[in-house]
């Protein structure tokens, strides 16, 4: 999978927390996840981890490395390659009163488990009249990297379509840790979508314990000329584009990280657009019928009179992902595409 030898070597460096110039601890996104899992497993003996190759192998993206040695095979369970089965098993275990955290290696493979996620996990509470629940946490990863057509997709829009699920896609170590702890403690099924290309990103994370509610978007950068809206790695891309737009073009971008995709809170976006009068949405998936389409629709519903330009959308090209490096680069939007879209919105 995506973990290469070079990745593993640099992991050793990643494991060391760094203290920034202000004395604030900075850890990686991967470490944030590890801390959340460790803390919740320590706090509650009914928290178990399940998934393909999470034990001896350490997880395809090395999130659970060392966990099986620490907690044993009873609490860190290597499953067969049975996405449908293991997702159902995790959901049933949650119904019966324990707290499974299931890792589905990549979101591409979650399609095999879609019946369990959509027809069971999402519906247990409602369909059975609130008599019981299925608080299963499903961790999975989006991303790409010359992995070809079936390993480079991101389906958050498909899951965010479904009432009853909570779908989060954190972009920072701070959110990753706080959301994962809340997901494990919460009462609802949570699809927790990571991104293979941001596991090594660093960010400030308090040493004290904390959780974050699984709701609401976050303004990452304040601005006045245009609102840039994204989530996960896209939010990081948008912040990079915003910096360059400020420096090179004198354009002030407000950047909003959606963070939680179901329930989808667009109040922050609407407030921002009422101020900037322009919006550009950045997503790594296909634009057609994607989350950006829903966000754009809500902007026109709730801030129609404030818009000075059509809502811009940047997404991937509408093709299955090609392997060749140059073609892949064309498919996934980069900083230049975001900058162009902003310039067009301001033209």
């Amino acid at each position, binding site marked *: 999978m995506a973990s290469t030898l070079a990745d593993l070597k640099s992991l050793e460096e990643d494991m060391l927390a760094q203290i920034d110039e202000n004395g604030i601890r900075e850890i990686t996104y991967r470490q944030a996840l590890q801390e959340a899992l460790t803390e919740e497993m320590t706090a509650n003996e*009914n928290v*178990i981890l399940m998934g393909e190759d999470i034990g001896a192998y350490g997880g395809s993206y090395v999130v659970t490395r060392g966990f099986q040695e620490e907690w044993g095979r*009873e609490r860190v*369970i290597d*499953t*067969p390659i*049975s996405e*449908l*089965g*293991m*997702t*159902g*098993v*995790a*959901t*049933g*275990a*949650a*119904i*019966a*009163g*324990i707290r*499974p955290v299931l890792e589905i290696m990549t979101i591409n493979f979650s399609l095999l488990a879609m*019946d*369990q996620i959509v*027809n*069971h996990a999402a519906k*247990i*509470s*409602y*369909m*059975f*009249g*609130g*008599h*019981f*629940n299925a*608080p299963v946490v499903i961790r999975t990863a989006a991303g790409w990297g010359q992995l070809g057509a079936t390993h480079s997709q991101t389906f958050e829009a498909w899951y965010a379509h479904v*009432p*009853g699920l*909570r779908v989060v896609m954190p972009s920072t170590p701070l959110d990753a840790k706080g959301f994962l702890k809340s997901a494990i403690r*919460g*009462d*609802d099924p949570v699809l927790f979508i990571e991104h293979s290309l941001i596991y090594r990103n660093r960010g400030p994370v308090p040493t004290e314990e904390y959780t974050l*509610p*699984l*709701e609401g978007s976050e303004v990452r950068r304040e601005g006045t000329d245009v609102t840039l809206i994204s989530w996960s790695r896209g939010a990081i891309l948008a912040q990079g584009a915003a910096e360059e737009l400020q420096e090179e073009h004198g354009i002030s971008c407000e950047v909003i990280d959606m963070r939680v995709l*179901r*329930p*989808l*809170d667009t109040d922050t976006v609407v407030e921002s657009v009422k101020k900037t009068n322009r919006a550009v949405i950045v997503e790594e998936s296909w634009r057609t019928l994607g989350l950006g389409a829903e966000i754009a629709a809500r902007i026109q519903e709730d801030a129609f009179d404030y818009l000075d330009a059509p809502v811009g959308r940047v997404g991937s090209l509408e093709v299955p992902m090609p392997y060749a490096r140059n073609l892949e680069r064309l498919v996934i939007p980069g900083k230049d595409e975001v900058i162009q879209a902003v310039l067009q919105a301001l033209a």
Partner: protein
Amino acid sequence: MDTGQLLDFYRQMYLIRRFEERAAEQYAYGKIGGFLHLYIGEEAVAVGAIAAMTEKDHLFTHYRDHGYALAIGADPNAAMAELFGKETGTTSGRGGSMHMIHPERNFWGGYAIVGGHIPLAVGAGLAIKHKKEDAVSVAIFGDGATNNGAFHEAANMASLWKLPVVFLCENNRYGMGTAVEYASAVPQMLTKAQGHGIEGEIVDGQDVLAMYAVMQRAVEHCKSGKGPYFIEAMTYRFRGHSMADPESYRDREEVERFRQNDPIPLFKQQLLDAEKASAEDFERIEAEVEEVVEEAVRFADESDFPPPSTIYDWVYFSDGEVGKEPERG
């Protein structure tokens, strides 16, 4: 087994039969909508098997589920009200016919995607093992479900991890309208379980005492740490797949032949022949059941529909800081 328990088996089977016959009638009157999958002909499986379960055990079933709900102790009033889609139903009109529950006895529902609930039951088995409870988890499914990946993935994991799971397959010879010989490469579903290293047996599902005995063996097997157990109960559905079934796939002669093997009169005759009970005992039980079912229909009919203001209740289980789904989702 004492006469009281034997007569209770009869009472439960007769209750399920009359409950469903009245439900079919209410469906014809338009009081019940959507699907109505009747269990008529298969009552001995539910009654015998569930009688061998304890309060700690867990149950997940397919959608032909009225019989399991009644056998495990759900209130007939609430069950009928659920069919009517009323607020007083088992799931307040949210689930309907295919999603009966009785959480007080860990009956976590009828499920309506064929085979999909089998992994859920294995998950409960994992929870039992994790919590070191003296319990089993039971999955009830049809012959058709064993052709599906969910069954095989779940069976493999249950066997691999030696989980206390009873796989109870009701082989009623049809998956909807397709006969088992056109759907399964092997004639007995047990063969497939054996391929996963699971022990089991084939049993006469029309014999309530045989079902009770086999389930006792299965539970004991699971609780002794030997892993899962597979029961293939040979049975037959006397009515169509659902109320909309034209039954073009089987002839009347076949149905009539299997009706000779009706578990309810068979068991009654067995008890009479053995002089365990008298004709008067049965008359009394049948009259009592008629009253229970009549009351269930009256209760369901007179209950209110769920208030529209509750439409968003339970989309999420938790409230408080995270709150319910915003109005437009």
